[in-house]
């Protein structure tokens, strides 16, 4: 039997509410498939499964509050016969102990809705910052309610089933779950950040990086390109961080009970400010291996989805380092709090023109303050300094950050 449990969704999220299933018993699932949607204080998370199998039983019902590690469903490997119901029932009672009290009155409504159109892509709702939960959208269709005119009472004004049903019966939702969600988010974040400050002996470094060459290169590259192919400095910085980390493995990985485990791949958590307050830092995976244009596309999509309140469980659970960019808000530098169990955070401020000495010549130069907050249990200032120096040097050779584009230009020149 394969046990499908609620995966970890980051240090500041230990529970959620099952919104809906995207699978049904008897269905074959594949690796990476979104099988459920779980509501958390920060976003509605599309939960992926990472094993192949056939669904035996959905143990938890929509509306139930669940903890990380709760058994959600049982499956069997595709080549085996179905598990006997008695086994699944035993599993269910175990899960019942782990699950918190079911949300009152809401659960029966959800269970009536068979997930018949599970293939509907979640990105369809991502073009708006105001998020309509898929369950609420479906309920609205059934009740012939226009969700676009509703006022949401969920996180960031997202529209919940309660809002739809209230509209159908001519009521408004008088409770203020939005406020509760914000309070939950702040409490969870406070707990994670307090743990970070308590357990992680931080050290901080900062380095000024001349960005003239990199910005000129970006401007030339973007000049002839359509909007959708343009690259912002944020994507260039992300790529440079990932490449610089190749020589600083002590900054990229997770610190667990058994000590530090470096990560071969760089999954960069990107800190994204949410409308109405709060912060989420979902991962872009394998940053070092991706061409700039792909990174830029993924970054735009991630920001859009994070602000619309729709993320994937793999994005929440596995960043190996965090990058925060406060340049747009206008501050010159940011010294971050490390997000446990990670061991480092890279911060970027605003790029500003300042007087700069190039040899004996005084000139105007766009400058960027890059900072590193890192964990003294794993690395020290010398290693951290080498990382920032490598980052600085990589940004002086921006074309080397985008070998794909370089190759394309060369082949054009040859042709």
């Amino acid at each position, binding site marked *: 039997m394969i046990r499908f449990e609620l995966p970890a969704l980051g240090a500041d999220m230990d529970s959620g509410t099952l919104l809906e299933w995207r699978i049904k018993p008897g269905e074959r699932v594949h690796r990476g498939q979104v099988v459920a949607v779980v509501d958390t204080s920060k976003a509605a998370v599309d939960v992926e499964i990472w094993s192949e199998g056939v669904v035996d039983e959905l143990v938890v019902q929509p509306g139930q509050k669940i903890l990380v590690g709760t058994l959600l469903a049982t499956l069997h490997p595709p080549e085996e016969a179905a598990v006997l119901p008695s086994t699944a029932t035993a599993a269910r009672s175990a899960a019942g102990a782990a699950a918190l009290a079911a949300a009152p009155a809401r659960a029966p409504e959800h269970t009536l809705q068979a997930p018949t159109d599970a293939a509907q892509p979640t990105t369809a709702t991502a073009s*708006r*910052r105001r998020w309509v939960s898929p369950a609420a959208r479906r309920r609205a269709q059934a009740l012939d309610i226009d969700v676009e005119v509703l006022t949401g009472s969920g996180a960031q004004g997202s529209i919940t089933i309660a809002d739809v049903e209230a509209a159908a019966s001519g009521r408004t939702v008088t409770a203020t779950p939005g406020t509760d969600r914000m309070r939950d988010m702040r409490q969870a974040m406070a707990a994670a950040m307090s743990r970070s400050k308590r357990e992680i002996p931080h050290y901080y470094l900062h380095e000024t990086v001349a960005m003239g060459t990199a910005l000129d290169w970006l401007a030339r590259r*973007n000049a002839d390109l359509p*909007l*959708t192919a343009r690259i912002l400095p944020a994507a260039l910085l992300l790529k440079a961080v990932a490449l610089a980390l190749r020589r600083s493995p002590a900054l990229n990985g997770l610190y667990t009970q058994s000590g530090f485990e470096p990560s071969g791949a760089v999954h960069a958590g990107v800190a994204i400010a949410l409308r109405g307050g709060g912060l989420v830092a979902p991962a872009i995976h394998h940053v070092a291996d991706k061409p700039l244009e792909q990174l830029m596309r993924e970054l*735009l999509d991630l*920001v859009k989805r994070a602000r619309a309140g729709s993320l994937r469980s793999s994005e929440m659970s596995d960043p190996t380092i965090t990058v925060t960019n406060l340049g*747009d808000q206008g501050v010159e530098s940011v010294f971050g709090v490390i997000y446990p169990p990670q061991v480092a955070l890279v911060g970027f401020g605003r790029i500003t023109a300042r007087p700069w000495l190039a040899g004996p010549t005084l000139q105007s130069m766009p400058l960027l303050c890059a900072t590193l907050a890192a964990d003294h249990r794993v690395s020290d200032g010398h290693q951290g300094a080498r990382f920032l120096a490598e980052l600085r040097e990589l940004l002086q050779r921006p074309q080397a950050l985008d070998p794909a584009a370089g190759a394309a230009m060369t082949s054009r020149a040859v042709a």
Partner: protein
Amino acid sequence: MSAPGLVSRDAVVEVLRTIAPEVEAAALDNLLALRHQVDLDSMDWLNFLIGLQQRFGVEVPESDYARLVSLDDLLNYLHDRASQH
């Protein structure tokens, strides 16, 4: 692709609201810096310009960003560029 839409304040604000749904048309000042009023970061700005391109068929080169500060700047720019087509 469908024919580009007519440039109007309402239409531009409608595109803006796909990025920042809380924006109220009446509360926007035509002469003040738009990105400051609406708190658009560089990702939002790029998504906004992509939305305008899809709506009005006007591609804004990066070198023109500096001219587009207020809503009026943007409307004049879109009027001029849309009429060249």
